[in-house]
Each structure stands twice: as C-alpha cells, then as structure tokens.
C-alpha cells in the first residue's frame, strides 16, 4: 500500500493492484487478471445500471490491466460514457483511458469527438484542458479533421486562459505533425508569432515549440518570429537569475525556453538586419561568457541546465556558420569539455565538435584537439563515448593528419568492441583512400585491416583495393610484393587470399624475377590456401591460375594437373567444375597468342565513386547497429546527392561470368547464368563480377555514397521546403527535400527544349516505406506549356534503400508555374504526404550563345521596346563575390560574355530559350554596386513574359 494516497483513491483499485503485486508467478497474475476481467465484464453487461464511481473504477482497472501488457477488448464504450460525466474525476479517467487505448473504431471516434466538442465549448478551463490534452495525446486524423480549425481560434482568442493557450498551442503542434494537410494556415499565424511576447513565460514556452515546428515547414510565414525570439532571448540571458521567479531552474534563467528560442532561430539564416544580428551575437557571447563563470551551485542540475543552453547556442553558431570568432570560441569551449570529469559532457563535446569540424572556420581549431580525442579513444570506459571519439577523428581527418588518425584507428581496432568494428573498418578504408598521397600506404592499410579485422572487412572494401591497384600502375609491383609477403603467414584471412589471388593473377609477373617469389613459389603459396577456402574463393583462385598460365608458361603443366584433378573437374560445385573444364580446355587448345589476348591484363576500371561510402552510409541506417552513431552528421552533411555518372549506363552491360578475367567478346555459356556460385544467389554477391563492377551495386549503393562526402551545406534540412526550389535555379543536382523519413535527391539534364530528371527517393529509416507513390501534377495552364511525364516507381522502398524515378520534360512554350511532386507513402502505419515544388524553370531550356561586344549591343538596341525589357533593383542577399556571381550566371544557362560591358565590374550574358513552339533570344546584364550592396538586373528578350520570368528567377540568386 502506498504511504500516501492522494485525491479520491479508489479502494477497489488499490486492492486489485495489491493482489497483482502479490502474485507469485506469471500464471497466478494471469489468473487473477482473468478473474477481474470476467467480473468487470459481468458488471458492464449486468442489468443494474452502474453509477459513475463504479464505472470509473472499472475503467481504471481495465487501464491498469492494459498497462501491464495485456490486451483489452472491451470497456471502450463505458470510458466514452465517462467523458460526458459532469464529475471532473470521472471525466478525467475517461479521457485517460481514451488517450492510452484509443483505436480507430469509427463509431466511438464520433462519440469521443462529440464529448470533446462539448468540453471545448464549455468555457470551463479545466474541462477544456482535458479535451485538448486528449486531442494532443491521440493526435489521430479523425480528430484533426474535427478540430484543426477550432483550436487556432481558441489559441489566439483574447479571453482564453493562459493554461488553455498552452495546451492549445501544443495540441496544434501535434496535429500539425500528424496531419499537416488538415491544419489550415490563416490570419492566426501572425497572432501566434506574437505569443512570443506574452507576459506568461509558460505561454511563451508552449508557443515557441509550435512556432518552431511551423517555421521549419514554412519559414517565410514566420519570419517575424526571428526578431521577437532574439528580443526574448536577450531579456532572458541578461536577467538576474531570480528575475524569472519560478521559471528559474537551479539559478539558470528559463533554460527550457532559452533552448527552444535558440532552436527556433536555427530555422533561419543569421538576421539580415545589422542591429538584430548584433543583438543575437551579443546573446551568444553572453552565453559563452557565462560558461566561464564559476558555478552558482554545485548541483548537477545547475550545470546541466546551463550547459544545455550553451550547447544549443553552439548549435546555432554552427548553423549560422558565419561568425569565425564565435565558432572558434565554441570550439575552445568544447575543447574544455573534452577533458571534463562528467562523462555526459565529454560525450556531448565530442558529438558537437563533429559538426564544427565541417565548418571551414573551425576545422583547424578542432584539429588542435586531436591528441585529446585519441586519448579518449584509448581511455574512455564507455563504448558510446569511444564511438563518438571515432566519429570525431573521422570528421577532423584531412590530408595533414590522415596517417596519424588512420594509424590510431587501426590500433584501436585490435581491441574495439565487436559492435562497432565493421564501421571502423569502413571508416579506415574510406580515409585511407581519400587521403592517400602514396598508394603504397593505402595498400598497407587495407592489408592491415584484413589482418586485424578480416571478418569485418566487407566485400566493398576488398573490391575497392583491387580496383585501385588495377588502375594505378605505380602501385602494382608493390601490391604484388606485399600480398605475397602477407600470404606467407601461416594463418591468413580468406579475404587476404581473395585479394592475393586476384593481384598475383594480374601482376605476379612483376615480382617473379626474384627467386624467392618465382612463379612456382607464387603458385604453390596460393594453392596451399586453396583447400581451406570457401567455394567463391576457390573459383577466384582458379581464375588466377589460368592467368598464371599466360604469365608464366613454365608452370602451365603444374596448373593443368591441378585443373585436371578429380577434385576440380568433378567438383560437386558446378561453378568450380565449369571453370576447371573451361580453363583446362582453353589452356590446351589456344595458341600462346590467343591466350595472351584472352588473358590479357585487366583494363582500368572506369573511375567511379567508392562503394565503401555507400556501405557506410547504409550501415548508419537505423536499426542496423545497436549503438550506431553518426546518422546526425550524415544527415547534416547530406548536402548534395549527385548520383554517380555511371548509374544508368551501367545496367546495359550485364555481367558475364567470364568477362572479368577474359576480356573478350566470347559469348557467355548459356547455363551459367543460373549457376552463380556464391552463397547468396544475388548476382552482385559474386566476387568476380563485382570486382569488375560491371554490375554496380543496385542503384541504392551507387548514389547514396556521394552525400557523405559532399561537405557543402550543413543547414540543408531546415530550410528546404520552398527554399529548395530557388536553390535549383542555377544548378541541376542536389537534395530537393529531406525529413527524418525520406531524402529526395535530384539530378537533371536538359537539351534544347527537352529535359530529363532523375529523382532518387532514399528511405532513411530501417522500416519499409509502403504504398509508395509519387506523381507530378501541373496546373491547367502549365499543362499546355510544359509536358511532364513520369515513370512509375516501386511501391515499396526497403529500409535504407533508394529507388529512382525518371521524369521526362518537354517545354512547349514559355511558362512561369512549376509542377508539383506529390509523394505519398505509409511508414510505420502512418500515411505520409509530401508535396514539393519540382524545380523545372524556364531558364533550364537555355542554350548559351557567345557573341562579340558589337553584336551584343546591336541586339541590345534591337530589343529596345519597353515591354521587352524587365529590370529589377535589389539588395544583395549574399556576399558580393565576383567568382560566385559568375558561376551563378553560367549555372543559370547563359554564356557569360567577357569584355563586352565597358565597365568590367558588370556581368553580361546571352542565350536562347528553346521551347517546342519557338526560340527566344535573351540578353542580360547585371550591375553590382558594392558600396550600396545592391544589384541592378536587366533582362531583354523578344517576349515580355520571358523577360519577366527570367528576371524574377535570376534575381533570387544574389
């Protein structure tokens, strides 16, 4: 029995709970529960009407039983009845039951909604709050449909009580998250922003969460919140700790609100207004200063709250990425935390520094902490902290420290926890390749990886080392020598045998001059491993042997004996058998010349992105690792997805089993396609085909990987929605949209009036996205101007996978609107709708035109009709950098004409817009005024609509 029983205390319930607690076994518990369920059922079904109290008590018991983990299939109706009780306590239990146990029983939903409606209209704040809490807890679509328009009204009404406003704000937030399409925007939005000014800090706290969520989706509508948030924040950080009374938490002024405001500001770029910007910088400085002051309390709550604000401020500083001094100060502060005695702070400092490492301003400052981080790797007792240290080392790695970091990671790998080994292997492999100046170092590193953690070295890693060795003749001799030496070890990993077999088969001749590695010695060494290996490796070795016959005629007889032996020719495995038969025959019938042609050295691989990156990216997908880590970083760094060039062309060359080692056009034996040997039946798991990568990993792999390395935009994910459209005006590739479930990448190419767009949908979760569909819709007007055809896309996207959709576009005549891309899918049972503007704009159909100064001005004059010219004068939104401007104009699609304008600060360009119906010549001129931070942009074309549209589009860019 509890020491205190507050409130009404339902005795029957307490007795029941005691009984359950006294049950000695699971069986006894189930027995007791079944008895109770039977009792309640009979009461509910009984003739005698139950009074409110009994109903409440039984509903509460059912709830308790449900929370113990048992299924409840009745009692919902009684709970709904409680909702309309006029006794608060009964109503409250009814709502609790509904919140916890609601199911989409449509009859009940109607009744529940009715009860909620009554309570919302009751003007009794306690009842209203109960109803709002229920909507926020359930958050179903049905409720959104019923109340999404009512709640904003309650929220901004002048006479609403503060506590109701708080509930209403968060209720709306929940509905906006679950069914954004049902929450109408309207004139209430402006009034919501003003809640940031409210006197009641609780209202401000609740409202700031709502505004942040809305601003993430529609930044433009909530721009005014920036100045209000800065003002509010500034008042909080400069207040004496007691000013805010009960909102002061362990001597820290309103820490939750501060964090929320700082979070809200991360939805926006740094304020343009200099005064406001100065004020914000001041706030951030104050927060950084406070970190240096002696603590006002020894309680951990004090330091946690203070540092929570500090870390959020640092996130904002990193997000803005514009104030070098703040960034360096943030880095120094985190540096102090790296050695703090609190494990939590060390963990967070490592985490936060990872993002700082990708800013050009602070990258160097982060690097100064390398020794501390390496030390953390060696001494931290908590694996999750060590994991963070690995992440940070990876993030801070560059050419200057790559050797040190790779060496440290390799040595950590010897003792690393099994759960993170594979990931470290991938990271080492990526760093070794990315920063290899000297490829002998790269080869050594990968062989070390195989030696230390062979089991964790995935196919991607050893495929890659072979690709690189094949492509770089300066390292081939070294590689042959090194694998030969490594193979001498009495026990070596099978992955080493694979790499060794392949490399000696190609380049064994480079070391054959030395009698210690003569052809026969090489062959015997390889063959001594043969019987210990799995079938795919043996198959690979057989191919190496036939290559030996070409390289070293003197061992031909020995090898033929091996091929001829029953254990090969009659091997139970059909792949081995086939190779043995075919290779043996080939070696007997072919002349030396033919052999030399057939078994010629492998041609270089087409340069392609490393598939290891794809692997790492995939691994970071949720669910794959129990304690995975840098999905945050990956998410942020996902700047642009520029799918590999090879992607679509690659499908044409279906891999032939022999094509790899025998680069001829010999037709492939028909049956072999069905007898792919390796353990998995999937084609791409076959070691031979894949080393060649004729069949590059399903498109998933090839394109996912690039984003890990494109360290361009950190802030991408927040300001995507509308903003992303403008980002594509001057470029064709990148991330169009991203949320926590889905990433949409885009690659497009245009020729004359035709375009093709490849849209990549990446599932960021570990779960399947079901019923996936995506369609492109255009307004009626646009349909006549722009022909858009989209191909169907797979309805299921596996966890972590990516699918591609191709869209063909034809420009019929000039246009202004943009088509919409509508995506719908189901994830974890919830239907998701995403709608994004597809960045197809008129300038995509430009063909650049070069012309002389004389021609330019002659045509300029010809287009002198005022309707043909559109001019815009505007303030610079970005730093006025000449090279940047040039690349934007070129990206816009026109030819940038040098030495045309007498003033060489100005930019002029020319191009032709191709549409199906007509071609429109365009001339443009951009005149920067550095002092005033302004531009004047002039467009002249033969069509007024074209001039207008192009001018609007381009003006957005500067």
């Amino acid at each position, binding site marked *: 029995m509890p020491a205190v029983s507050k409130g009404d205390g339902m*005795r029957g319930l307490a007795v029941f*709970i005691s009984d359950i607690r006294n049950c000695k076994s699971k069986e006894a518990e189930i027995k007791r529960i079944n008895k109770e369920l039977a009792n309640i059922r009979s009461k509910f079904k009984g003739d005698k009407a139950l009074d409110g109290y009994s109903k409440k008590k039984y509903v509460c018991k059912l709830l308790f039983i449900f929370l113990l983990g048992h299924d409840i299939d009745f009692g919902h109706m009684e709970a709904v009845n409680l909702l309309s009780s006029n006794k608060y306590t009964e109503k409250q239990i009814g709502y609790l039951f509904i919140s916890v146990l609601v199911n989409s029983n449509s009859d009940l939903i109607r009744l529940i909604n009715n009860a909620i409606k009554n309570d919302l209209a009751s003007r009794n704040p*306690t009842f209203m709050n109960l109803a709002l809490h229920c909507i*926020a807890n359930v958050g179903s679509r049905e409720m959104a449909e019923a109340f999404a328009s009512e709640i904003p009204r309650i929220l901004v009404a002048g006479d609403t009580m503060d506590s109701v406003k708080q509930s209403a704000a968060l209720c709306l937030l929940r509905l906006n998250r679950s069914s954004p399409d049902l929450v109408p925007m309207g004139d209430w939005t402006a009034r919501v922003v003003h809640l940031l000014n409210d006197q009641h800090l*609780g209202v401000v706290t609740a409202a700031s969460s709502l505004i942040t969520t809305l601003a993430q989706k529609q930044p433009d509508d909530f721009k005014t919140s920036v100045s209000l948030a800065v003002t509010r924040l500034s008042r909080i950080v400069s207040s004496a700790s007691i000013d805010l009374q009960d909102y002061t938490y362990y001597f820290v002024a309103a820490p939750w609100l501060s964090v929320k405001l700082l*979070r809200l500001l991360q939805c926006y770029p740094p304020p343009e207004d200099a005064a406001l910007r100065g004020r914000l910088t001041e706030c951030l400085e104050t927060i950084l200063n406070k970190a240096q002051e002696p603590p006002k309390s020894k309680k951990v709550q004090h330091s946690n709250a203070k540092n929570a*604000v500090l870390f959020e401020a640092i996130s904002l500083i990193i997000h803005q990425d514009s104030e070098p001094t703040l960034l360096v100060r943030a880095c120094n502060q985190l540096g102090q935390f790296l050695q703090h005695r609190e494990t939590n702070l060390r963990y*967070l400092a490592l985490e936060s520094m990872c993002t700082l490492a990708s800013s050009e301003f602070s990258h160097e400052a982060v690097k100064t902490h390398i020794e501390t981080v390496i030390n953390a790797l060696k001494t931290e007792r908590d694996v*999750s902290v060590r994991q963070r240290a690995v992440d940070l080392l990876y993030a801070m790695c560059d050419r200057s420290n790559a050797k040190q970091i790779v060496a440290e990671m390799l040595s950590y790998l010897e003792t690393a926890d099994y759960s993170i080994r594979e990931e470290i292997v991938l990271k080492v492999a990526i760093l070794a390749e990315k920063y290899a100046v000297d490829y002998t170092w790269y080869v050594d590193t990968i062989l070390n990886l195989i030696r230390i953690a062979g089991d964790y070295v995935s196919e991607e890693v050893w495929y890659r080392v072979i690709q690189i060795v094949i492509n770089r003749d300066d390292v081939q001799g070294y590689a042959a020598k090194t694998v030969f030496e490594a193979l001498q070890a009495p026990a070596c990993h099978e992955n080493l045998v694979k790499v060794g077999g392949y490399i000696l088969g190609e380049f064994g001749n480079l070391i054959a001059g030395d009698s210690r590695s003569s052809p026969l010695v090489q062959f015997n060494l390889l063959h001594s491993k043969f019987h210990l290996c799995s079938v795919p490796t043996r198959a690979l070795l057989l191919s190496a042997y036939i290559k030996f016959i070409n390289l070293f005629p003197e061992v031909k007889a020995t090898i033929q004996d091996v091929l001829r032996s029953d254990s090969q020719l009659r091997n139970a495995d059909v792949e081995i058998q086939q190779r043995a038969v075919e290779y043996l025959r080939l070696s007997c019938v072919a002349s030396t010349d033919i052999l030399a042609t057939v078994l010629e050295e492998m041609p270089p691989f087409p340069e392609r992105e490393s598939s290891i990156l794809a692997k790492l990216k995939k691994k970071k997908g949720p669910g794959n690792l129990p304690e995975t880590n840098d999905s945050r970083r990956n998410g942020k760094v996902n700047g642009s997805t520029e799918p590999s060039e090879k992607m679509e062309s690659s499908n044409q060359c279906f891999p032939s089993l022999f094509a790899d080692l025998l680069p001829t056009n010999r037709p492939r034996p028909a049956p072999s396609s069905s007898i792919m040997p390796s353990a998995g039946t999937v084609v791409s798991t076959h070691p031979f085909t894949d080393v060649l990568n004729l069949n590059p990993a399903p498109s998933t792999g090839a394109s996912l990987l690039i984003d890990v390395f494109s360290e361009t935009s950190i802030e991408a994910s927040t300001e995507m929605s509308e903003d992303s459209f403008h980002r594509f005006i001057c470029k064709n590739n990148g991330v169009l949209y991203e949320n926590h479930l889905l990433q949409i990448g885009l690659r497009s190419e245009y020729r004359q009036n035709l375009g093709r767009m490849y849209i990549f949908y990446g599932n960021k979760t570990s779960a399947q996205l079901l019923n996936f569909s995506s369609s492109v819709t255009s307004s009626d007007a646009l349909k006549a101007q722009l022909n858009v055809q989209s191909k169907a896309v797979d309805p299921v996207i596996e966890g972590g996978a990516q699918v591609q959709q191709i869209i063909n576009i034809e420009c019929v005549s000039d246009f202004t609107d943009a088509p919409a891309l509508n995506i719908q899918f189901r994830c974890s049972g919830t239907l998701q709708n995403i709608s994004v503007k597809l960045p197809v704009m008129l300038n995509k159909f430009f063909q650049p035109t070069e012309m002389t100064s004389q021609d330019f001005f002659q045509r300029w004059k010809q287009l002198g009709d005022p309707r043909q010219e559109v001019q815009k004068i505007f303030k610079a939104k970005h730093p006025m950098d000449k090279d940047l401007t040039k690349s934007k104009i070129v990206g816009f699609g026109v030819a940038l004409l040098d030495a045309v304008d007498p003033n060489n600060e100005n930019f002029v360009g020319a191009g032709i817009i191709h549409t199906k119906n007509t071609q429109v010549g365009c001339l443009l001129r951009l005149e920067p005024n550095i002092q005033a931070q302004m531009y004047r942009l002039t467009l002249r074309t033969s069509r007024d609509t074209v001039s207008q549209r192009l001018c609007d589009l381009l003006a957005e860019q500067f």
Partner: protein
Amino acid sequence: MTMQFMLLFSRQGKLRLQKWYVPLSDKEKKKITRELVQTVLARKPKMCSFLEWRDLKIVYKRYASLYFCCAIEDQDNELITLEIIHRYVELLDKYFGSVCELDIIFNFEKAYFILDEFLLGGEAQETSKKNVLKAIEQADLLQEDAKEAETPRSVLEEIGLT
C-alpha cells in the same frame, strides 16, 4: 524538444509508466520497450546518460529503483531532456511527498495527469513547478467536491470485493 516517448521502469525491468508521443502499434511499443529496457539495464552506473538507438537518442537517468528513459530526435538537446526528467521527478516528489516506486504503481493515473500538465505532444508545456502543481491541486479539489456528493460506498467495496 520533440520527445518521442518516455518510459519508467524498475531495476527488475517492470514497466511502470509509458507515454508515447508518436503513433505506434501496440506490437511496436512492446518491442521498443523490451529492447530499451534491456539495453539500459545492461549499462554500468558510471556510463554516460545518452546513447544512440536506432535513429533516436536515448536519454536516461536512474532515481532510486526507477529508470526514467526518454527518446528524443536527432537534433534535440540531451542535457535539457535530462532536466525534463528531473523536473518530472521533482513534480512527483512534491505531489506525493517523497515519491517512491509504490506511489507510481498505486496512483498511476496521477502520474499520467501530472505528466500531461508538464509535457504535451512531447514538448514542455509548463516548466514552472508551482504552476503545474497548482493545476493538479485544483483538479484534486474538484474531486473532493465531487466525492462529497457521491453516495456512500458499499461495505463490500471497502474490503475490496467488487
């Protein structure tokens, strides 16, 4: 602070309170609970309070025999979540007067009511201790009033037979 869910469980792994701020099926909820209880209980006392789990961040802290465990999103602030937990503990403590696990077992509905006043939709609604408790006490007063009006309960109920 977008909290996805909060779980309270004992050292023996018994779930004492569960609050979900994202729609999930019962099956998923059970799976998540099982996995997390196991993961958190396996950690040693001095380890850090945060861990990455699936694509979420877990923030947890032990108070006496109870673990308080929250899941937040990637961009969320771990430390402030730790203090969300602490503030909730303070609220329970103040309301029950030196709260213990039994209070939460026997008055689970109160624990839910207090949580709803403090957090809504996974976000802090009211961080002032005074204001939250005031709201709960007002509700309790309403209950007292209502109780007086009720008919006297049967003797049978007093001994727990109904």
